[in-house]
């Protein structure tokens, strides 16, 4: 089985990779990063980097990939045999922006997570024109991927996080302060966004840890159970 990942960031790719390794016992080789483009050529990269930031808020690029179908066609419909799936990862943090167009429900609603997830899933299906439905898994993070990683560092439910990034950073800082070995290793794994996130979410590679973690986050659980 091979799984392609279309995600908002390279860090997200690393986290999903670790989850898949733990969940399905996959090797890194079985997981292909399709977005962001790790293999972009340098001429294009230079052009890309000179683009005004507003043009490529990361969810818009995920949306673009979904609408254009190219990556899906190339990965799922190419002539090479084998069972293949694509995971689409998207945060809900910016879901009310123009083009994403999703209205958040009241956070107090007990079905908040599931409702929001369903709305985003519906939106993705719309972008994809309902194609490849059997081969898609939805990694919809409420509200940010950091809420998923957070579960590895603190016994607390992060399903409906408030400022997920900040909360996780605060928790991590505490750990780094008290755990010298962790701090040393963390220091060594800073070269790229991918490496950083890969290091921080390494524990997902162990199925037991993963299963424990998903009890603390509803959207992570829904994603994992979709397999």
């Amino acid at each position, binding site marked *: 089985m091979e799984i392609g990942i279309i995600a908002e960031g390279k860090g997200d790719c690393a986290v999903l990779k670790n989850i898949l390794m733990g969940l399905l016992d996959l*090797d890194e*080789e079985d997981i*292909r990063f399709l977005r962001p483009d790790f293999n972009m050529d340098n001429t294009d990269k230079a052009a890309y980097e000179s683009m005004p930031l507003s043009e490529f808020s990361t969810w818009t690029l995920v949306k673009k990939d979904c609408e254009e179908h190219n990556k899906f066609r*190339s990965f799922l419909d190419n002539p090479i045999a084998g069972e293949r799936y694509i995971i689409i990862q998207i945060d809900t943090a910016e879901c009310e922006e123009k083009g994403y167009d999703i209205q958040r429900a009241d956070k107090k609603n007990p079905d908040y997570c599931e409702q929001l997830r369903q709305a985003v899933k519906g939106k993705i299906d719309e972008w994809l024109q309902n194609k490849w439905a059997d081969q898609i898994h939805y990694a919809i993070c409420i509200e940010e991927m950091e809420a998923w990683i957070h579960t590895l560092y603190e016994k607390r439910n992060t399903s409906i996080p408030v400022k997920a990034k900040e909360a996780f950073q605060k928790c991590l800082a505490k750990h780094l302060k008290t755990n010298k070995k962790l701090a040393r290793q963390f220091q060594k794994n800073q070269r790229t966004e991918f490496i950083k996130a890969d290091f921080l979410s390494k524990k997902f590679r162990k199925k037991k840890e993963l299963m424990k973690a998903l009890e603390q986050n509803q959207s992570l659980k829904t994603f994992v159970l979709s397999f």
Partner: protein
Amino acid sequence: MLQRLRIRNFKSIYDETIELGRFNVFIGENGSGKTNVLEALGMASAASENKLSNDELALRGIRVAKPTITFSSFLKEKQVKAIDLELLIKTEDNLNVNISNQLTTENINDIFSKWTLKDGILSIEDEGKPISLVPYYESILQTNTFDFLTRAFLPLMRNYSTPEKLQRFLIEQVNTLLPKTFIRSIQLDLYKIYNLSTQTLRGIDGKSRAIPGIQGENLDRLIESFDKKERELLEEYAYFIDWLEKIEIDKEDRHKSDGHKLDMSTSILYFRDKYMQRKNNRFSAENANEGVLHILFYLALFISRHTSKFFAIDNIETALNPELCKKLVEQLVKLSTKTNRQVLITTHSPSVLDGLNLYDDEQRLFKVYRNKKGHTKVKRIQLKPNQEFNGQQFKLSELWMRNYIGGIPQNL
């Protein structure tokens, strides 16, 4: 044909089975273990002929290392002190012969320690049904071998109190001959790993006296040995080199004194360039461009009636323009059928993939990678059945480069 190869406990290969075709191409990251696959087969080949000395291994293109690092040595795994190689050979009369080779060594800390082979036939099957080895023993016992054996073992007769015991002993002896016979039937005993060096092709720095040697030694002599038919076949491919007017073998090394070589090259191979003035258009191998030397070597290797039917090539793309390389591979595939070769080839060139027709089961593509434990894995890349023609939409080279196949580092 070697249909299946199982390798256990050799360098980075923990336990891997590969189903081979006629023309087998391996891609993968640096350090994934592609060359180790070629070398494992080389160990089986060398073992079958009891040519396991370091020199003999090196001449086949195997990098000799200390046994402690020749046996796999992965974290959290106990090191097993034996290499296990299992070969499934399909004979010309369609028998499937399963041979096991086990290689051990006395002192695993000593790079000079001698290797010992324990081999045997595991099974012989005819259309899936196991068949008894007895007829094989009989056929061997009816030949000169039997006379030889009887005579050889006559002095030992007294040790075998009953005919049954002697028979059992003889069968054991025959048993050790059988694997070698099958290995020879596909010329796996002559297997080598070619990995060309431009300098060696130029006739400089060569170390092997083989025609040809693994780094490209004695290409001139190989071409010199061609008969008319081989020569004609070779010349059919002259179009690969736009400027090539003629290939010359200077048997008496006469041009040497004309100042064509700096006396460093021992090669007697010359080329004539059709774009240059006739009086100044002769190039020695020493001065020729490297592309022509590499192409010529591969063509000669596949054409010659003297070269083995079974060999490997490491890094076939070296020094070749990608499109040229693709077309070369396309022709080598054809030649491999025509001259009945079985080959294993590694490459880093995406274009080589485009030279293959994966709808043909004889042409196989494998990706080699390390799994999370660091073990080398070999996975065949096959096409979906009944794939419709899709108008160039999916070129294999591009699928590879765009990361839809794997076998490239994703996170550098």
